[in-house]
């Protein structure tokens, strides 16, 4: 296959858009089911997220009179495309099916911002005051969690390895480079610096997914789903799909960067999926045991303790721990 056709297949079918959407919807079900079990309920049947999305695709799309129609309808596609491309890069590096280019970690970090930006701009384009409040909160939250998230990912980049009694900086900016480093030197998660950075990145990814306690941008009981308030039908469905793709991407990114890649054996695949589901269940447990915070509390949390922890991890990594 020509490289272009190969990458188109990667982007659109496996491991990009189609695969990530399907996996994401399954993971959404895992999220809702575990939530239900925590609350001592039976929970939805396995096909529930698929029916939800199918129904939304068939419903009427209303564009509010005061909205900017182009942005209102176009931004969900931008968000979904960015999430799909990010998912492709992360999975390609995790499985190692194609050589990743140097610096794809930076590209992934940027691409993962775009779905949030799409929600922010979509909420602002809807012209609804509550949507604007949701957008503003989402913007502040994004500024808050991006800083510790990037520092925590840098910890993986600056890891050092002892070769012939000498500390050599082995990290690279490419995801497959990080995976290779872990194949040689063991999981980054098992080092003190890696463990701290993983914890920080986990909490930042939690906020990125918009889960409680950092769901103040959607807060359905105070500002009625925030930025998504005015969305209906298929465009709302696109945002739901985008969230599902992010749910299938962020745990995989965390596992790839801190816990080693995927080896293509039965045991390897099972171990990888087990790690992803374990991180997902951690998300769900954090989500179900914490009340929502205010935006100032969230910003203080991310810029205060978490940034300090991430910087400490960076220092430890510099010392070779």
């Amino acid at each position, binding site marked *: 296959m020509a490289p272009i056709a190969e990458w188109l297949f990667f982007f659109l079918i496996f491991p990009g858009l189609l695969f990530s959407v399907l996996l994401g919807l399954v993971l959404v079900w895992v999220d*809702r089911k575990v939530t*239900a079990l925590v*609350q*001592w*309920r*039976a*929970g*939805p*049947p396995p*096909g*529930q997220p698929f*029916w*939800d999305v*199918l*129904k939304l695709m*068939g*419903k*009427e*799309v*209303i564009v509010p009179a005061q909205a900017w129609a182009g942005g209102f309808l176009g931004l969900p596609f931008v968000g979904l495309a960015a999430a799909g491309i990010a998912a492709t890069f992360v999975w390609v590096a995790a499985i190692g099916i194609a050589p990743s280019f140097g610096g794809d970690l930076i590209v992934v970090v940027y691409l993962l911002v775009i779905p949030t930006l799409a929600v922010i701009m979509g909420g602002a384009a809807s012209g609804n005051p509550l949507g604007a409040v949701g957008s503003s909160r989402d913007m502040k939250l994004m500024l808050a969690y991006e800083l510790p998230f990037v520092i925590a990912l840098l910890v993986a980049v600056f890891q050092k390895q002892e070769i012939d009694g000498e500390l050599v900086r082995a990290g690279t900016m490419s995801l497959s480079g990080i995976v290779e480093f872990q194949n040689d030197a063991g999981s980054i998660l098992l080092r003190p610096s890696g463990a701290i950075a993983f914890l920080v990145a986990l909490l930042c990814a939690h906020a990125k997914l918009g889960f409680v306690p950092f769901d103040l941008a959607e807060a*359905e*009981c105070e500002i*009625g*789903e925030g930025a*998504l*308030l*005015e*969305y*209906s*039908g298929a465009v*709302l469905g696109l945002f739901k799909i985008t969230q599902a793709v992010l749910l299938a991407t962020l745990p995989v990114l965390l596992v790839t960067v801190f816990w080693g890649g995927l080896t293509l054996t039965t045991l390897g695949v099972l171990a990888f999926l087990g790690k992803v589901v374990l991180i997902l269940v951690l998300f769900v447990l954090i989500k179900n045991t914490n009340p929502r915070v205010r935006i100032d509390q969230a910003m203080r949390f991310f810029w205060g303790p978490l940034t300090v922890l991430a910087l400490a991890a960076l220092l430890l990594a510099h010392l070779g721990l």
Partner: protein
Amino acid sequence: MVTKTPLLLRALKKSPWVFHVGTSGCNNCDIEIADCLTPRFDVERFGIKLVGSPRHADVMLITGPVSRACKEPLQQAWLEMPQPRAAVMVGSCACSMGAYKDAYSVAGPPDKVLLEIDPDAKFIYVPGCPPKPETIVMGVVKLLGAL
């Protein structure tokens, strides 16, 4: 308008999202609606989800008689719901005004108020003071069967 394909109707029955509107009732039916979400009844088993915006909803749960002050907001919320849409009248007051019949402060039962602006509106009536949570769930299911 949207075309109602069999697949869409099936998906609607599998995931009816409800939006709850209290039009100045006595709050008793509202508590019973909240009961449906508790672990004992757990309507999420059927894909029923309470959403915070009429734009996301398929079914509107209306409790209480419509007071004069509530008439316009109710009509507006109804028009904000995307097609196909339907409503469940929860409780005796929403069905037939109950104790508030002929009171000076009410504008009418919710079905008449909605029919004023949308003659095609579809309803189902769940009587009771208040109705049991199982009855409310059955009302939603029957309504979707009738679409």
